[in-house]
Each structure stands twice: as structure tokens, then as C-alpha cells.
């Protein structure tokens, strides 16, 4: 338990710091790299939450594919590989109260709802097989829909990005 707690807090702090950097840094490429840290941290948290399959997918899809896409996007739009001053908009400060407001709402809601509730010591661990049974059983229809979404996204991305 303690080990898990230590792991959680360490990763959590790293993630928060990294996330903050993502939204504050003046360098797009740096931001992308900080994002990798956040995503990796998230994958680690998934493992802590006994969701190995999701964690693996996270690493493969996000860190593997999405990040590459981001970097490509950055390159293709000829962002400077260096700091830039023009990344934030004029209402930058507007974000603080908005985020603060949401956070306040969540703090109130979470603390009143879950208070000191603990995760059971020996929680039921979900095996990958169960997950796949669910996906191809009860959630088959969303799965199909999702497949179509992906297909449409691929086609759409191609159509959008084509030069002609």
C-alpha cells in the first residue's frame, strides 16, 4: 500500500508539473515533450489503477502515434524550434478564474461525495479478457460506431490535408 502511495504521489506531482508546463511553455516543441511526460504519467496511473491493457494502449496509441502526429503538425506548420512569445491569447488571465471556478466546483463535489472513502484493499481486478468480452459483447454497437468514426477521421484527414 505504502509503495503504491509513494508511487502515486510522485507520479502525480510529476504529471501536474508537466501539465502546467504544457500550458505555459513558450516553445511548442517543449510543450509536446512535456505532454509526453503527462501521458506517460497517466499510463503509470492506469497501472496503479489495475488497468494494464489501457495503460499499454495509452503508451502505444498516445505516446507512440498521437505524439508523433503532434510533432509532425508542429513541423509542418513551421513552428520555430525555439521559444515564441505569441502563443497565448490576450485573455490569458481569463483562464485562471474559469479553471478555478471549475476546480472549486469539483473540490466541493468530490469531497462531499467521496470524503475519506478508500479503494478496497483487494479490489476486483479486471482482466483484459473481460474487457474484450465487454467490447465485443455489450458494447459492440459503440465499437462499430467508433470504427466508423476512425475511418471517417482518416478519410477526413486525408481530404483536408490534400494539397489540391
Amino acid at each position, binding site marked *: 500500500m505504502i509503495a503504491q502511495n509513494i508511487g502515486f504521489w510522485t507520479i502525480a506531482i510529476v504529471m501536474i508539473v508537466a501539465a502546467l508546463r504544457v500550458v505555459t511553455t513558450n516553445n511548442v516543441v517543449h510543450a509536446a515533450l512535456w505532454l509526453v511526460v503527462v501521458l506517460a504519467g497517466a499510463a503509470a496511473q*492506469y497501472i496503479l489503477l489495475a488497468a494494464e491493457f489501457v495503460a499499454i494502449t495509452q503508451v502505444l496509441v498516445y505516446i507512440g502515434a498521437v505524439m508523433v502526429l503532434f510533432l509532425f503538425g508542429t513541423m509542418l506548420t513551421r513552428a520555430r524550434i525555439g521559444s515564441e512569445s505569441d502563443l497565448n491569447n490576450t485573455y490569458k488571465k*481569463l*483562464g485562471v478564474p474559469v*479553471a478555478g471556478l471549475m476546480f472549486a466546483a469539483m473540490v466541493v463535489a468530490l469531497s462531499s461525495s467521496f470524503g475519506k472513502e478508500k479503494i478496497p484493499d483487494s479490489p476486483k481486478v479486471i482482466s483484459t479478457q473481460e474487457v474484450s468480452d465487454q467490447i465485443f459483447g455489450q458494447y459492440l454497437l459503440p465499437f462499430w460506431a*467508433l470504427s466508423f468514426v476512425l475511418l471517417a477521421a482518416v478519410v477526413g484527414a486525408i481530404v483536408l490535408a490534400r494539397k489540391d
Partner: protein
Amino acid sequence: MFVNQFLFLAAVLFCIGVYGVVARKNAVLMLMSIEIILNSVNINLLTFALRNGSTDGHVFALYIIAVAAAEVGVGLGLVLLVYRNKKTISVDDLSEMRG
């Protein structure tokens, strides 16, 4: 471990993401902020999956990852297109839809 520690982590990440969406004007950076938000949601889902011992959270986490991939693909495609036409990806300059 408390349930809340995960949930609070998710909340913090979520709010950071929100801040990013609001404060950034570079489209790529906005997309990144959105990714943070999506991940925080995933953490939430998985926390509850563990707490309730149900598989639904896992399934939806996976779906969200898939949707996020699609979203990034299309989003970046759009960014590229905008860049090609306007030579900028600052969303502030994209106000043709102004009412």
C-alpha cells in the same frame, strides 16, 4: 489509497487543461490541452472502474483513447489546412464565424 486522491489528480489535470484551452491561441497547443483533459477523464473512469469492480470504465477509456486519436488526426488536418490558407495557426485570427 483514497478514491479521492485519483479523482483530485484528475480534477487538477482537467482544470489545467481548461486553462490551456482558454489561454492558448496556438491551435496545436489547444489540441494538446484537450488531450490533457481527455486523459484526466480517463483517470476518472478507471478509478471508478476499480472502485466498483466493473469493466465499463475500461471499455470507455479505450474508446476515449481511440476517439482522441481520431480527433487529433482531424484536428491537425484542419490546422494544416488553416495554415496553408492563412499562414497562421493563431485561433484568434480565425474569427470568420463572428456573429
